[in-house]
């Protein structure tokens, strides 16, 4: 085409090259991440196969993988035992996390903004924050008995305090000058909230959410061991002890680790990439790399 700018094909080539280099770098970092794990698994496998470790106490990774495959039953996903456990656990963890967000974020914003309320609540929070949520489990068991409500209540407490605390700190860290700037622009209360308080508190809030989710996930296992009747990864691990089924326990542990990692990297990693990393990126002006 005579109209086509001469630079267009070069731009295409540059784009393709850039995409390729991004893919290459992604693959390289994934490999670097996986390498120590692979080496670790190989050593583990070898020591078990050589009989240096009793396989009934520590089964080999291949054994655990085989067990996971059986439990997963990929031929019929609807009836897969492992998938059911995972879904039930995820549902409990996520619903308690969501509940914690809904209550802790508004409360945190309020306590962060209201000095008097903060002074009253602060000593209580300092006392409750370091308390492991599982400690409440027996009390909830007395009130609600075994079942989802007890598990969700315990996980909720695990997630609630880190989110509340981070939200308060995030709001309190916003300087009065920031508020003055928008107030001198004639901002309404809602404008101040939407344009300064919320984005200003977001970095702290995200780390609070991350911590809250991690706490919720950790508390879940213990709560399920104590209070679950039929399902959940914690229940699966705990129930397997009756049959001395160590490989099933390890399948549960591996699932907990993998899902925890996925939530941390996948969900919160991309949330951070969209916000904090973009705002405070190390990219200098003029360079788009």
């Amino acid at each position, binding site marked *: 085409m005579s109209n086509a700018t001469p630079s267009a094909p070069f731009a295409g080539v540059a784009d393709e090259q850039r995409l390729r280099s991004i893919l290459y770098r992604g693959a390289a970092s994934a490999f670097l991440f996986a390498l120590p794990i692979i080496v670790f698994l190989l050593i583990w496998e070898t020591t078990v196969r050589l009989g240096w470790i009793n396989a009934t106490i520590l089964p080999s990774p291949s054994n655990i993988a085989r067990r996971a495959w059986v439990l997963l039953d990929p031929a019929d996903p609807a009836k897969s035992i492992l998938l059911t456990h995972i879904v039930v656990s995820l549902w409990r963890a996520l619903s308690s996390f969501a509940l914690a967000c809904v209550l802790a974020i508004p409360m945190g914003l309020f306590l962060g903004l209201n000095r008097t309320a903060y002074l009253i609540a602060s000593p209580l929070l300092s006392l409750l924050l370091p308390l492991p949520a599982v400690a409440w489990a027996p009390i909830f068991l007395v009130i609600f008995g075994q079942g989802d409500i007890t598990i969700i209540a315990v996980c909720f407490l695990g997630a609630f305090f880190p989110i509340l605390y981070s939200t308060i700190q995030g709001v309190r860290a916003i300087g009065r000058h*920031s508020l*003055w*700037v928008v107030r*001198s*622009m*004639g*901002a309404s209360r809602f404008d101040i909230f939407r*344009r300064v308080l919320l984005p200003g508190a977001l970095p702290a809030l995200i780390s609070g959410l991350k911590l809250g989710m991690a706490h919720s996930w950790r508390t879940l296992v213990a709560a399920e061991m104590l209070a679950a009747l039929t399902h959940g990864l914690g229940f699966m691990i705990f129930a397997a002890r009756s049959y001395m089924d160590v490989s099933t326990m390890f399948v549960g542990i591996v699932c907990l680790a993998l899902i925890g990692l996925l939530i941390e990297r996948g969900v919160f990693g991309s949330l951070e990439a969209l916000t904090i990393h973009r705002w405070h990126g190390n990219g200098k*002006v003029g360079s788009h790399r």
Partner: protein
Amino acid sequence: MSVETAKILPLRDGAGTKPKIVAKNVQKYFGNVLAMEDISCTINEREFVAIIGPSGCGKSTFLYLIAGFEKASQGELLINNELVVGPGPDRGVVFQEFVLFPWLTVLRNATLGLDIKGVPRQEAEERARKWLRLTGLSGFENAYPSSLSGGMKQRVAIARALSYDPEVLLLDEPFGALDVQTKNYMIQDLQNLWVEANRTIVMITHSVSEAVQLADRVLILSSRPSRIIADVAIKLPHPRDLRDPQVRRYEDEVTALLSAEVDKAMKRERQTFAGRS
């Protein structure tokens, strides 16, 4: 020199004689501490007034009173003959530490005041771009503040305060956080901006050369509790060069007045200290 007898001498084109900001016997206490004894002054429309004084004398407090962030304990503060009751979009403020919003790009920081006013996005961007150009930031519209140098951040803050068209621009030690080279360059570089802005400007500073180079009038405050001890009109056209002997003469005059006050304050401080021990 008392305030009543001080003559207002407009020198920038268009600087009027209509009073814009009037302070009548303004007093400010912080708890039991008297920070401001009695400040009375009149700042006229489109005048550039610099307020200078020993450190800790409450210069910034006076600016915050005008901005409406703080309330006077006694006396009245009027803008356009109306009592100041709180902050408002008729006054734009630039702080020493820039106070940009890191989650907004340069352009979005600059349009913020207009966004809050509800001005359509395209018009807001057009108006903000004009001030970004005049502050020398063209090409940086889509950058985030974290990637800018201190001098550039302060340019964004100035553009942001001018974009929403306030009648009064309040500058709180705007060059105080910058290194000497950047500061000197910016003062020189932005001289035309103030003429272009054509607003009433009040600048707090502790630098005599800054005050003399930029302002139409320099108010000198005493140490705490502060009063206005001198009102010096700088009768020179803009832009000004610090090497100009006339500018130098004003600089010497203001320095002399200010150091006499600083000497007094220091002596008083030493006496109180000696009396205590």
